[in-house]
């Protein structure tokens, strides 16, 4: 089922508001809503679920206008960040809850369906346990089975791995991807972890301040960031203010050579990834920078350099054999970078 969100606005007291947001979710895809906290990603998910109603705009489920539909009528599956399992019910009863409410078949049919789902999430042996007897990862899987039980038109997950430790997170992530490939549910999940979003999702929607900044695949987001926000939010970036001489960007009055990506040609902010920065002898490049700090890491030297007279810090990782010292001057060459208007 494809979902269209058209011009949705939702005002709140402080954060998490949506401001005229548009988004198309394709049938069967796994899409991530990625953004800093307060960007509105959870609110958007709750608007799709019907747990919040927008002040303006429409939500379409396929051809159907679902804007006014109550949450019970939308047939969605929702997995909460902290699982929200029913504490006083066994795993079996938790998963069966939706089926019983919706009267999906007889007692034996429900039992069979719950068994199937518990097999799917590899918890068949845990049916009689209570949530408090399960680990975090197991609880998350119960929550998923419960959400899948009613055969939802769309599966919505709010920070599904937020409360788990790193190792379980990675395993569960891979497992969820496989599960999605097998069941083919249209799935939307919220995360603030860009690595998680890009590894797991077919497409990533990046939110900022209640609006979508960009929707695209990992390649789109990394290689063709649509806005300065996307460029700086996804992956490490440094930015310096530059002018433009008609052909080349200039920094503090001196034009420099670089491969310019993106459409904008003119003064603005020049964004560069650390791997595209080269350190040379002072004077060998158009831009001079002052080395602020040098720290040893497992793989090399983490070096912070501020170009020209600015306080901007460009953080790059140099080879272990590099001979930079804090307080000295170096030349900086930018192999490629992207210009955005300010």
């Amino acid at each position: 089922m494809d979902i269209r969100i058209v011009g949705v606005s939702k005002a709140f007291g402080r954060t998490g508001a949506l401001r005229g947001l548009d988004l198309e979710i394709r049938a069967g895809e796994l899409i991530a809503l990625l953004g800093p906290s307060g960007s509105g990603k959870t609110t958007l998910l709750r608007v799709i679920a019907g747990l919040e109603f927008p002040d303006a705009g429409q939500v379409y489920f396929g051809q159907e206008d679902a804007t006014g539909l109550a949450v019970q009528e939308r047939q969605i599956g929702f997995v909460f960040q902290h699982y929200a399992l029913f504490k006083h019910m066994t795993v079996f009863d938790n998963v069966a809850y939706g089926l019983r409410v919706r009267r999906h078949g007889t007692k034996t049919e429900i039992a069979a369906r719950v068994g199937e789902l518990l097999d799917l999430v590899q918890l068949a042996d845990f049916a009689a346990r209570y949530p408090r007897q399960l680990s975090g990862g197991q609880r998350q899987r119960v929550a998923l089975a419960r959400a899948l039980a009613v055969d939802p038109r769309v599966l919505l997950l709010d920070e599904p791995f937020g409360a788990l430790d790193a190792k379980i997170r990675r395993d569960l992530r891979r497992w969820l991807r496989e599960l999605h490939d097998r069941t083919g549910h249209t799935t939307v999940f919220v995360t603030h972890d860009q690595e998680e979003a890009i590894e797991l999702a077919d497409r990533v929607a990046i939110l900022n301040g209640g609006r979508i900044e960009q929707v695209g695949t990992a390649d789109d987001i990394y290689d063709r960031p649509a806005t300065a926000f996307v460029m700086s939010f996804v992956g490490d970036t440094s930015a310096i203010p530059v002018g433009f001489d008609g052909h080349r960007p200039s920094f503090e009055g001196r034009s420099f050579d670089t491969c310019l990506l993106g459409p904008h040609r003119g003064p603005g902010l020049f964004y560069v990834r650390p791997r595209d920065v080269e350190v040379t002898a002072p004077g060998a490049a158009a831009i001079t920078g002052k080395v602020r700090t040098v720290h040893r890491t497992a793989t090399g030297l983490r070096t912070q350099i501020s170009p020209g007279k600015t306080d901007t810090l460009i953080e790059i990782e140099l080879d272990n054999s590099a001979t930079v010292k804090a307080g000295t001057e170096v030349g900086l060459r930018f192999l490629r970078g992207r210009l955005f208007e300010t």
Partner: protein
Amino acid sequence: MSQRPLPPPTAATERPVTRLCLTAIALAFLALFLVLPVIVVFSEALAKGVAVYLETFDDPDARAAIELTLLVVAISVPLNLVFGVAASWAIAKFEFRGKSLLITLIDLPFSVSPVVSGLIYVLLFGSQGLFGPWLEAHGIKILFALPGIVLATIFVTFPFVARELIPLMQEQGSLDEEAALTLGARGFRIFFTITLPNVAWGLLYGVLLCTARAMGEFGAVSVVSGHIRGVTDTMPLHVEILYNEYNFVAAFAMASLLTLMAVVTLAAKTVLEMHYGDALARTTRI
């Protein structure tokens, strides 16, 4: 209290002597003010033997008092259960105007002297009161009858269930209810399958406290009851009457029943806490 191992001694821990003294003082206080009275009640009640003790309950007035008290409890506790659950549900799960006013009002019976609570009903329903003439004209008797006693009891015991549930429900938030919503459940079903089971122990404890207080309420009931022997005398009022008549055995026998109720409540509370330790301890205020 739940059974937790004592923390290891730290620099802030008092010396053994100090600790011993403090504990002794606390225990002595408890013995003097709580344990001793209970012992006195039972020893006075049984002063002339078990036979005399049991005989006092054969008195028709005593029986009437016990029956009246049980009737009052049977009416006021279920009503307060419903009111309390409704009020805490509204306060914990919804935002509305006047919410803090409602919370303050629920606490009112705690801060008002029970005698004043009783007087309110006299002023409202007494023959000189606001509705008195009208009620009299229609032959409805509230004061010096069962309705007045029930009203006064409900007023005094109103906070017990609500006060027990509000913090519990607030702490639990609405996540479980939202989960049930997404699974297709609606209002009443969510309430009975999710909300209520989540607060079951706290609710039971609130009802126990409410019952104990409803049985034992003296001040408010005393004002509205009219002390008609065998008709509007509840157990606590009957204790007073017997005592004033120097009928000590009967007075203490009746008092022993009320004490027993208190002990049962305490025992039940302990059992509940063993089951349900941390959540209950956190939210118990009274």
